[in-house]
Structures are given as C-alpha cells and as structure tokens.
C-alpha cells in the first residue's frame, strides 16, 4: 500500500515483475528495493531507470508528466517512454549510466503527453545509483515540472517588455536614475533627443554623463529629491544642453518632473525623470501672441483711419444726407482696397488693381473716359488704402466739378518708377477737356483727404496743380517704403 502514490503503487504491486528484465521483486537488490520504497512514498515526482534495459519505474507525480503514455510506460524501457525527445534525453541518461550525474534548472521539452505538442519545462537531477563495488545499477531522478513557473516568468517578462515599450513610445523624455549618485539605468528615445542623440549615459552618473547640468544646479535638485522624497516639478525651465550635432551648447526650455522611486521597504532607491522639450511650443505661442497683438494694433489703426475719414467728411459736409453718402462711398473704397490685400495675401496688391477698382466705379466701358498706363507695380498694404482713397476722391471731384462733368472731358492716368535712380514712385492724374479750372477758395473734404498723402511711405508728396485747362495731381513717394509690408 502506497497512500502517497495510489495509482503507481497499485501498478507496482500488481505487475508480474518476474516477466520483466528486472526479475521477481524478492530477488531485487537492496538498492532497488530501497529506492522504489522512497519513490512510492514521496509526493515529489520521481523516476527510477534501472538495469541495462533501462526499465522505467515512476510515481504518480511523474505519471502526470507522462500524460496518456502512462500507464503503458510503467515497467517498460525509458526510450519507449521518451522516444520523441530521445535526442535530448539520451546523452544525459547515458552520462548517468557512465557515473555522471546531471542537474538542470530548466530544460524545455516539447511533449505529446496529452495528444498535442506542448511546451514543457523541467528542473531535474539524474543521479547514478551504484552497488557497494561501484558498478552503476541505474539512475534515480527527483524532478519538478516548472512549466507553470516558467510561464509566469515569461508573462512577467512580456509585461516588462510592454512597460518598456510604453516608456519608449510615450511622448516626452523619460529616464530612470538609481542610487544616491543618480546613475542612469534607462532612458527613452525622446530623452536622448532632448539631451543630444548618441550620448553615452547608461551606467554613468548624471554628473558624469551630462556634465553641463552640474553648474546649472540640477544635481542639487536631484540630491534634494533623493534625500527628502519630495517631487520636483517645474515648467518652462531654461536649461543649457550640449545637444548640437557636434556637442555644442544649446539653450532650451523644458517642463521637468523628478519623482522619487521607492523599493519594497519604502526607502528611496532612485528617481524617475520626466522631461519635455517645450522650446518650439513656447516659441509658437509667443509668435501667436505677437500676431494677435499685431492684429489688435492694426485694427486700432484702421479704426483711427476710419475715425479721421468720418470726422473729415462730417466736418466739411454741406448737409447730413450728402455726408452720409460720401462717407459710405469712402468706406466702400477702403473695403475694396482691403479685399485686394486679403485676396492674394499680404504683399500682392498692385497699383493696377487699385486703378482698376476706381475705373470700375467711375468709368463707362461703352464710352471710356479714362486712359490709364503704368507698370504692374506691387504696393504695400498701408499705402494701398491711401492710394485707393486718393483715386476715389480725384474721380469724384472730376465727375462733380472737373473734366468728367462734361461729355468731352477725359482723364489721363499714368504711373511709373522714376528713372534713372529707380527709387521713387510717381503717379500723374491729368484732366483734359473740362471746364476752366480755378483753385477753390475753400478746400473740400475730398481735397483734404487727397492732401493727407500716401500712408506708410517716406518722403511722400501730393501736389495739386490747378492748371486752367485741367487739374493735375502728382503723387510721389520713396519706392521702397511704397512697396514695403508693415
């Protein structure tokens, strides 16, 4: 009776051993008798391979590893049991029979013990058993299947690898420092990108690996976190890092977090570093802020311009009805000039576009009164608003009092870059065929708006020449400032 191994104990008891190479049990050597007793009394899986035919005896624990080969394998040859992995088993059983034991912590077998290929892992020791004269009688093996433990370890490894990938893929630099001297244990790609790609830091202290941060006080901060256990969190921290292609220093802004890491007993044994290079981000924010500031500034200036136009219109108007009409015309002209700026983007308005807008409004395509000519000159956005207004006022005046007030009158409008220096813009408006011209005693709002000149230009002049045969207006300005975008 073997209560620890009822199954194999039963087989052992019922088998007719006299018909096996081992012979009748009562004739067995004392060694075999003792070992079978030990084996069938043990809860640990055990195996005995005995005699030159390598007859195999095992207990219930080992039977579990044999799968469906048990019970047929009991009392048969060892090779018959493990024929499918004999290449791996044969060398160690042979070594045991030659007197050399083998011990292995983890050996992997693919077994078919349950009818399908199965990865298994064993820790075992094959021990040769000798008679008192030293002859090897067989092999005794105490073994443990460690497949379950190996799988747990593997799952842990997979988990670790997954965590490593999380660190690797997370946006932002991550590094782990160990010990009181802050030795780099790990750093992800973003961390390297931040401090300078290709720097050799793992296994080195921060002070050795990133020497430039020492004088910037970062080691003191790390020491403090390690000593007190209090995290350090900073945003927009200026830092100098030798991160250039040739290791040259660059100034960066980073968001930085140092957090203490603790071992099982709660003592601090390292620091987790999380850092994000926010230099570009902050620069973008600053430029956005600048842009919105600039837009606000422009808007205020435009309002001031509208205010001036409105006030000039009202100041010189004969009555409210005509003031309202003139004001809305002037604002419409400004609006059209703005469209020209907005349509093509900044810096794409041309003098021709502005002249075209004026003739669209004041000329008749069926019977043209305007002759225009000039190069396709670019004009800055500030002067473009003024030039539109000047053209509009000249045309309005011509329709009311000048050449366009009679059917025979015409306007010649030409503009050019003044040669030979080519550093000045000039536009000449000449009226012909209209009523005789005399200089008005009181300047209307139109004349005053014209005399305000080209906004944004330097050395700009507007000359009104009240020649008897037709009004002339000469607008000139420094070309560079005329074309400049403000």
């Amino acid at each position, binding site marked *: 009776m073997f209560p620890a191994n009822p199954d194999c104990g039963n087989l052992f008891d019922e088998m007719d051993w006299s018909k096996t190479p081992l012979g009748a049990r009562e004739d067995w050597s004392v060694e075999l008798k003792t070992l079978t007793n030990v084996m069938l009394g043990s809860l640990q899986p055990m195996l005995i391979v005995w005699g030159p035919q390598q007859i195999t005896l095992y207990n219930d624990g080992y039977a579990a590893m044999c799968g469906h080969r048990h019970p047929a394998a009991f009392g048969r040859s060892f090779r018959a049991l493990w024929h499918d992995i004999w290449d791996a088993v044969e060398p160690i059983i042979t070594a045991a029979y030659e007197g050399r034991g083998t011990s292995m912590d983890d050996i992997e077998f693919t077994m078919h013990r349950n009818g399908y290929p199965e990865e298994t892992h064993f820790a075992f020791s094959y021990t040769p058993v000798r008679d008192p004269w030293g002859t090897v009688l067989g092999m005794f093996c105490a073994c443990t299947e460690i497949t379950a433990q190996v799988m747990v370890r593997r799952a842990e490894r997979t988990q670790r690898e997954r965590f490593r990938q999380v660190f690797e893929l997370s946006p932002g630099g991550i590094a782990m420092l160990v010990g009181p001297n802050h030795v780099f244990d790990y750093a992800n790609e973003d961390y390297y990108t931040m401090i300078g790609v290709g720097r050799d830091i793992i296994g080195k202290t921060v002070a050795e690996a990133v020497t430039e941060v020492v004088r910037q006080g970062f080691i003191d901060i790390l020491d403090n976190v390690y000593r007190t256990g209090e995290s350090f969190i900073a945003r927009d921290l200026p830092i100098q890092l030798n991160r250039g292609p040739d290791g040259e220093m660059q100034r960066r802004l980073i968001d930085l977090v140092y957090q203490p890491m603790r071992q099982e007993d709660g003592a601090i044994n390292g620091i987790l570093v999380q850092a994000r290079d926010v230099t570009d981000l902050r620069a973008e924010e600053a430029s956005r802020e600048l842009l919105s*500031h600039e837009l606000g500034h422009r808007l*205020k*200036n435009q309002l001031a*311009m509208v205010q*001036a136009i409105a006030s000039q219109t009202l100041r010189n108007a004969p009555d409210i009805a005509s003031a309202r009409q003139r004001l809305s015309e002037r604002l419409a002209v400004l609006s059209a000039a703005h469209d020209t700026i907005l349509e093509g983007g900044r810096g794409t308005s041309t003098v021709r576009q502005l002249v075209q807008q004026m003739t669209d409004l004041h000329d008749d395509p069926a019977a043209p009164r305007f002759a225009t000519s000039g190069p396709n000159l670019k004009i800055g956005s500030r002067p473009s608003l003024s030039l539109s207004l000047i053209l509009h006022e000249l045309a309005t005046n011509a329709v009311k009092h000048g050449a366009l007030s009679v059917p025979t009158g015409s306007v010649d409008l030409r503009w050019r870059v003044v040669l030979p220096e080519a550093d000045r813009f000039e536009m000449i408006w000449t009226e012909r065929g209209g009523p005789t011209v005399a200089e008005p005693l009181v300047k209307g709002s139109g004349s005053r708006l014209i*005399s*305000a000149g080209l906004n*944004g230009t330097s050395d700009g002049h507007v000359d009104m020449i009240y020649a008897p045969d037709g009004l002339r207006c000469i607008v000139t300005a420094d070309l560079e400032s005329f074309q400049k975008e403000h």
Partner: protein
Amino acid sequence: MPDHPRSSPVLVVEDDGLIRMDLADLLSDMGLAVIEAGNADQALKVMDTLPAISALLTDIDMPGSMNGIELAHLTATRHPTCPLVIISGRYNPADGTLPDGAVFLSKPISEQMLKRTLTAMKLMTGDSE
C-alpha cells in the same frame, strides 16, 4: 472766461497723414495752435526751429531713427516741463517705458478724453466740455 491758448504751438507727431490731419483739426477747433510732423526726426527739426512748444502729442510706431516713446524721453530731457501725450493703438512695453508724467491715450482717440487730458495739463479750460 476761458484761458487764452498758449502762444506756443502743440506739436503733433503722427506718420499717418489722415490721422494727423484730423487730430490737428481737432486741436485747432479747441483753440490751440498746432504744428505737425510725420515722424520723430521731423519733430526734432521742428523743435530746433521753434523757441518752444506747449505740448508734444506723439504716436509710438513710426518710421525713422526713433519711435514716439524715445522722442518723448528726449523731449522730457530737453524741456522738463513740456506736457507729453503718447497716442497709440496699443501700448507694448517692448517699445519702452513712458517718461514720468506722460499720459497715454488709446487709438482711435476719444475727443472727450483728449479734452480732459489737455485740461488737466492746463493747456485749455474744461468748460468747453
């Protein structure tokens, strides 16, 4: 009885011709003598030729060798008692710090604010409001 306008003119420095013209009209309507300049460099020339100005009203952002704030500082150094009014769409500290006693007015300018400011500077009386 309103005070008589000072005999020295108010100097208006503004590169936008329309805004300058309108501001000059506004000041003239208030009974002040006005002289205009399109930028700080012109303004300095004007000041060199005049015995005195009664106040400086200047824009900030203008072409030329200096902006309006620098012009105001220079004027404060030369004429410590000259009232200074800075007029701009928005005050940006990057342009410089205003001189002591200078008044900032936002564009577009409010006629009422301008009158109040000039009254406080004793360039005109407040009863015209």
